[in-house]
């Protein structure tokens, strides 16, 4: 096992983590950055795993950010997954060439987000995946999820995926956005002129898609070996679905459907940072002081999506802020930084106002939880249906924790990462509690399954 003593460990190599690492390194702090991907960049600045030069402007920006961080002396550990952290801040990661133990003086958690998937009939069919997975396929492998793709769900990320697929020469056959387009969206956009260009570009890209609907929702994926059709129905402003007016889109071979993102809070939760629930921020997120990135735990900072879904611009800003304040707290000479930090905080507030507003506008529709039928599998690892979960609630338990122990939903290999939000929504719908009261599956060591041999190696001669 390698042992690395460092000032600052940054976990996550997306826009937030890269900016944080660079800012701290520039301030003279020893920084190590650990990232699970083959190459740093994260989801947004995703880099080709073979090292091939980026094809998109976004990818080039990422490559530049990586190069800058490297130039400042940040030590990168790619392909290394953090699986444990202890109260003394020791962090264990597992890499292809063996485990690493980091003993940092401070940690910045910039672990990003994962797709918010919600179960519906047919969602386990081959060919059905999240927009994030479709985007990864396109960016990493240069392939589309299918020849005839339906892109559905809600939120601006759908437009980004559409853009990627159009560029690949595989425009989706249909884009089904649940949020009805209305003056509220236009008014929100009007307040943020800085975002007009991006919006215009995304809208122009979407023109290549033959069928575009807003105020419609996919209620079912149909197929036997693979998805071949979807049922869609109108959904109104209050989130009610009108199934009487359902239609079918046939002749498809893939469905990308998702409801925005959820902060990846496993590590901050394991480190016992304070978390809060806000649907506009993707649900549970790590609470930070926005101007410094400090969490409720001393020596632990968080930046980017883990602090609430907001996108790449706030991620970069919050990353830089966290890097600067961690460096200052670690004793770097940061005199003269006050001006920059104040300006960053101001920019972050503005960027957040935009993204928080979008988050509220594109909140998943109220009826989303009604899509899963009794026989729809909710927990895929343990194959637990909605009826199983409802029966447990009828027997007198409640919340995510209650569903977990009485049905095993969330007890399998993914430990509830995929189904947790869905179980919370079902708990809320079935027992009248709020999604916040429903809670989440608390992450435990190990954060990811790791071979016993590695566990033994990393704990063998450790102190208590």
């Amino acid at each position: 096992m390698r042992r690395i003593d460092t000032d600052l460990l940054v976990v996550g190599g997306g826009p937030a983590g890269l900016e944080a690492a660079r800012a701290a390194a520039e301030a003279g702090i020893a920084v190590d950055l650990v990232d699970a991907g083959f190459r740093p960049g994260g989801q947004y600045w995703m880099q080709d795993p073979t090292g091939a030069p980026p094809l998109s402007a976004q990818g080039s920006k990422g490559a530049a950010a990586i190069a800058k961080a490297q130039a400042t002396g940040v030590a990168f550990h790619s392909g290394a997954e953090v699986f444990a952290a202890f109260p003394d801040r020791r962090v264990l990661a597992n890499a292809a060439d063996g485990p690493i133990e980091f003993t940092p003086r401070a940690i910045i958690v910039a672990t990003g987000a994962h797709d918010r998937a919600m179960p519906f009939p047919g969602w386990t069919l081959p060919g059905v995946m999240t927009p994030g997975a479709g985007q990864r396929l396109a960016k990493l492998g240069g392939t589309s999820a299918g020849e005839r793709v339906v892109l559905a769900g809600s939120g601006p990320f759908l437009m980004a995926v559409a853009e990627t697929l159009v560029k690949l020469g595989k425009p989706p056959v249909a884009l089904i956005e649940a949020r009805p387009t209305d003056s509220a969206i236009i008014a929100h956009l009007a307040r943020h002129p800085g975002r007009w260009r991006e919006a215009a570009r995304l809208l122009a890209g979407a023109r290549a898609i033959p069928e575009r609907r807003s105020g419609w929702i996919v209620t079912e994926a149909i197929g036997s070996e693979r998805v071949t059709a979807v049922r869609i129905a109108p959904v109104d402003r209050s989130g009610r679905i009108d199934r009487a007016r359902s239609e079918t889109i046939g002749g498809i071979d893939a469905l990308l459907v998702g409801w925005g993102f959820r902060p990846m809070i496993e590590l901050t939760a394991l480190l016992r940072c304070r978390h809060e629930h806000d649907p506009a921020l993707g649900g549970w997120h790590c609470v930070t002081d926005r101007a410094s990135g400090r969490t409720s735990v001393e020596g632990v900072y968080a930046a980017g999506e883990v602090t609430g879904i907001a996108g790449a611009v706030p991620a970069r800003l919050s990353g830089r802020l966290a890097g600067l304040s961690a460096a200052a707290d670690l004793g770097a000479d940061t005199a003269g930084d006050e001006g920059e930090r104040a300006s960053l905080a101001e920019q972050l507030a503005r960027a957040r106002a935009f993204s928080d507003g979008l988050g509220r506008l594109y909140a998943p529709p109220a009826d989303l939880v009604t899509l899963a039928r009794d026989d729809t599998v909710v927990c895929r690892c343990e194959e637990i249906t909605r009826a199983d979960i409802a029966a447990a609630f009828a027997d007198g338990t409640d919340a995510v924790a209650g569903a977990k122990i009485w049905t095993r939903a969330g007890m399998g290999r993914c430990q509830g990462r995929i189904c947790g939000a869905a179980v919370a929504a079902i708990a809320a719908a079935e027992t009248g509690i709020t999604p916040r009261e429903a809670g989440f599956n608390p992450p435990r060591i190990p954060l990811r399954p790791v071979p016993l041999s590695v566990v033994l190696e990393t704990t063998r001669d450790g102190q208590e």
Partner: protein
Amino acid sequence: MKPGAGMKADAVVVGAGVVGAAVARALAVSGRRVVIVEQGVPGGAVSGASLACIGTHMMDEDELPLLKWCCDEWAAFASVAPDFEYSRCGQLRFLKQESERRSADEWIGIETAAGLSPTLLDPDAVRRIEPELTGPIHAATWSPNSAVVNPFLAVRRLLEAAQAAGATLVSRRPVTALRLAGGRIAGVETAEGPIEAGIVVLAGGPWTAKLAATAGVDLPIVPRKAQCLATVSVPPSIRTVVGACKAEGGVDAGYTQIQQAMSGQILFNTVLEGGVTAAGSPDDIPEVDRAFIRDSVATLLFLFPAFVQIDLLRSWVRYEAVTPDDRFLTGPAGPDGLFIAAGDGGTGFVRSLGMARIIADFVGGRESPFRRDLYDPARFDMKAAA
């Protein structure tokens, strides 16, 4: 209205762990109107973390009659209740060296005298029972009557049986204090109002002492950390419950328990003597200790070296309730109408049905089919006075 608010009942059971669930079932079946009040989710505290071995092997000589009764009761419940993965798989306790023989022989003698049939096996005989146990053990004791249950489902089934007999279950409602009227118990206070009842049974595990104190009752229960690990699901590879031969010094001298759940996950823990542990309490539960992870994995791989590439999936920590002699406090205590059933000492799953029987017998004015003086909540006061 949520169930429970402003309710009246004959008996309130505080805590829906395996003990509270068993007590509620016993009281409801004997015709009492029961309300079970749980601060979290039913079975979510210690019971939901349990390895839930139901057995008599290397436990407590004085408790053997009760333990035997409990094992039979669990088997009987399994034959009438919907499935809770009851499996009479037997238990092996391995010896690493000859010096442990004395302890093994002693236990075998005690249990044989009580009508049980444990034996000592050489490593080859062990492997006929547990083929993957290829590690260099010296010998193992074999107790064929041990069983395991799924702890989540077992609590759920007990609660279902209680509910079928008319009990009401209220989840996520902490009881904040006991209610007294005219010197006797009158019910409980909750954040959402009182629940009136002439009988209150405290089955609150490590939280019991705090609640009893609200009625001026002092209980010698302290919390003790218990930890466990689980691998991902693998094909059937462990058939029995595998433990370490009990050494002198009881639980504090360390223990091992390894078994495979029906889900395929391998559940295991090893606590060695003098392990330093992170600070915590039932209300502020830390993560597993690093040394605990090491000792548990090392012991598992010592016994089952072929498992080295299996993935670790999860860990968990709970605080169990411990009394000075590791036996429950079960029976009446303090004001009339107040009963205690807590202080599980780390093996409360098997004994829960017996504790429920004691409470039901006290409430119903009957004798119990085994000694109940062993569990008298006041036994330490009497010793101090003598």
